[in-house]
């Protein structure tokens, strides 16, 4: 029977076609979903390589860690302000009346296996997430990657930053400890400060006058459901646009506005980026293991009439705290109404202005320069001195505000008068950006004017001639560097076996793989 031949292994293999079982699976899938062409295109996607393109990946992967650790925490945390008597293993708190939110957070740290690690990893991941977003934004800004056609992705990015900061604040509030409770009080007061509607807004937000019992469950829902869902959606949109518009690249040999040079999605980029995910998760794990963060049991439970002396929010809130400290106590009070400018301006208007400028920047720049064409090649910071100078000045303003959030610490540390530090900060807030702008402008312009700037450095061969003078000629490419000097090719569909003994097309060492 001819069947008998089918039973031999070899014949079976042949019947499956050249790609065996995988090929069959692809056939089945493609007949139903039509995945072959799209899948191939996806694997062929080219990613340009540059260290600064990793910043967005850090943000993405720390967000993955946030989601994973957050789910764990949600299993044990109890979002309730009901009072319970703490009877856990942390002796100094034993027998105290605390909220369930606080008790469950302390239990997470001491009673749940792996709980403390998860709490600390979650907090570290949050700080890294926000920090990485800011750095990523800096790289997009200073290289001009936000220019047409990527304005939408810039906008999505800014919204992600705001949501990241907001969700960080909400999460920070959940343990209901003394430090974060003070933060919630300040949030209520800031909402109250908005003219006309402030007291209504704050009552609606908290479900009553401060503190009420609704704030913890409400913050919980926002923190674990609503904001993460929006963030996930926006991250998806961000990455979709990135794929659709393709990544930008720095100028270089063979790189034009009409191509992308780099490594393909599969397998090279995939290997590197998956490795990077593991690395980011690993580093956050090490931080969670070795660097204590937010030891709420030391702060104790929140009591409205008590306060801890070192009130310091997470770093991404620092600029707001600093602005609140150095803004003068100007207030408006007449006609039976109060407008607390001393709060409203630094904590509502100022961040509003900051984030609106950032959001509108692509439009602002296009308006100033009149440049409305499409750009896929990046600029180096020195290529655009005006933008770079503005960015540095803007960032320095935020940095000074951040430093101003520790006026008391600075005064103590340097044994200075608090008033001196306060006035120094007020002056620096204005002076530093004003100095940073022209200084950066000058540096960038000089760098740009340097000969051979933006060019890769090459070795020169210097010889001493008979007359004792020196001759310099550019050195030939070192064999070790030869590999990086090839012109780029399109991804091959097939890799053919080299004819025996063929070394012709290389002139380069062949290595065993």
């Amino acid at each position, binding site marked *: 029977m001819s069947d008998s031949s089918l039973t031999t292994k070899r014949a079976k293999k042949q019947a499956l076609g050249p790609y065996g079982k995988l090929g069959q699976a692809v056939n089945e899938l493609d007949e139903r979903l039509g995945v072959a062409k799209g899948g191939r295109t996806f694997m062929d996607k080219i990613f340009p390589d540059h260290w600064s393109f990793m910043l967005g990946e850090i943000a993405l992967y720390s967000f993955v860690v946030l989601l994973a650790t957050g789910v764990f925490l949600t299993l044990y945390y109890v979002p309730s302000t009901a009072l319970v008597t703490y009877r856990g293993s942390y002796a100094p708190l034993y027998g105290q009346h605390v909220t369930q939110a606080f008790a469950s957070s302390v239990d997470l740290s001491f009673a749940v296996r792996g709980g403390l690690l998860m709490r600390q990893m979650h907090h570290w991941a949050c700080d890294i997430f926000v920090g990485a977003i800011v750095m990523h934004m800096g790289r997009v800004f200073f290289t001009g990657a936000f220019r047409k056609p990527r304005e939408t992705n810039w906008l999505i990015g800014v919204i992600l930053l705001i949501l990241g900061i907001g969700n960080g604040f909400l999460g920070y509030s959940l343990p209901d400890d003394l430090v974060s409770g003070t933060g919630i009080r300040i949030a209520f007061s800031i909402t109250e400060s908005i003219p006309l509607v402030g007291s209504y807004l704050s009552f609606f937000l908290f479900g009553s006058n401060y503190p009420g019992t609704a704030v913890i469950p409400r913050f919980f829902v926002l923190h674990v459901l609503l904001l993460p869902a929006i963030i996930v959606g926006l991250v998806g949109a961000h990455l979709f646009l990135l794929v659709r518009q393709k990544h930008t690249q720095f100028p270089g040999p063979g790189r034009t506005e009409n191509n992308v040079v780099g490594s393909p999605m599969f397998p090279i980029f995939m290997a590197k980026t998956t490795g990077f995910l593991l690395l980011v998760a690993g580093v956050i*794990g*090490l931080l969670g*293991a070795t660097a204590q963060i937010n030891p709420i049991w030391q702060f104790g439970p929140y009591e*409205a009439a008590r306060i801890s002396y070192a009130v310091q929010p997470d770093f991404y809130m620092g600029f707001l705290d600093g602005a609140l400290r150095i803004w003068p106590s100007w207030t408006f009070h007449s006609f039976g109404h109060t407008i607390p400018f001393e709060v409203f301006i630094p904590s509502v208007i100022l961040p509003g202005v900051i984030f609106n400028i950032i959001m509108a920047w692509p439009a602002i720049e296009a308006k100033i320069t009149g440049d409305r064409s499409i750009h*896929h090649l990046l600029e180096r910071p020195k290529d655009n001195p005006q933008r770079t100078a503005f960015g540095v000045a803007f960032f320095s303003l935020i940095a000074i505000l951040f430093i101003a959030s520790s006026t008391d610490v600075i005064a103590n540390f340097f044994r200075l008068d608090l008033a001196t530090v306060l006035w120094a900060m007020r002056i620096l807030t204005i002076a530093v950006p004003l100095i940073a702008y022209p200084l950066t402008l000058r540096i960038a312009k000089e760098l740009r004017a340097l000969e051979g700037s933006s060019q890769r450095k090459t070795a020169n061969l210097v010889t001493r001639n008979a007359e004792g003078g020196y001759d310099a000629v550019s050195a030939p490419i070192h064999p070790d560097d030869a590999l990086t000097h090839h012109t780029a090719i399109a991804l091959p569909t097939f890799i053919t076996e080299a004819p025996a003994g063929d070394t012709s097309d290389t002139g380069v060492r062949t290595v065993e793989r």
Partner: protein
Amino acid sequence: MTEHHTPVTLSSVSENDPRLQPLAKNPQDVERRIAVLFVAGMVLEACFGWAYWINAQPWILGFTFGMGLTFLGIGLIAWGKYLMPQGPFVEERHVLANSAADRDAFTAAIVDRGGGVIKRRKLLAGLLGGGLGVFSITALFPLIRSLGPLPGTTLQHTDWKKGTFAVDVTGRRVHVDDLAVGSIVTIFPEGKEETDNGQAVDQTVLIRISNSNFTTQKGRETWGPSGYVAYSKLCTHLGCPVGLYEQKLQLLVCPCHQSMFDVTNGAIPNFGPAPRPLPQLPIYVDAKGFIRAQSDFHEAVGPGFWERS
């Protein structure tokens, strides 16, 4: 099945092509090192499982977990960087924009097809818009209005009333002999010391002034008997409890943004962002010597808000 396929551009290169070569000069050596990393990662993750099993210290859990992933991650990155083809490869960047004709066809579909229909049925379009508009406004009621009560005059009042006894945090009534000169205690209206509102809104500091050059504010001559004064403990900046008392300078200091209030002079702020003095609570000493309130505060306590008169 195969009729309409655009053929895939098939291309091939020889496996000797330099762009397919790895970056590593000595791939076997690199492979060995990566293998070591992977083995280390695997062992550490196994240790993590074991540490979890025996409920080891959190730092051991984190160290094995984190170090293991770090090794695996570095190994994988190195694999991608040193052992995989180093390229460079290039891909064309297609223009996303469509032809003018395509765009016109799209806009035409919206304007001619859709617009025509709507223009002819203005009444229906208007009514539908009206219905959805009404819905979106009424939908706001449950969404926003139910979130909390209206503030009304809540923010203007505290639980202090005429005759309320002042108690400390444990609920004990404060007697005129309780405080040494120069000391301070946080007081609450009796019965409210354990409530949220009592803690967050009514909290008041009672100070026995040591300074003889105390300036009595106009109209407050009877508010501070026997060297006692009582001020709201809520900072007028953002409502932090004004928890620090500088006894020598007789200043109440807010730890949040360092506002300082001069206790000997109506708690007027003399430093920091707080815009107003701390409201003073009028108190009296009753026949038995207990500290009691003459009335509520005469103004809203805490930070500023629009309705604050």
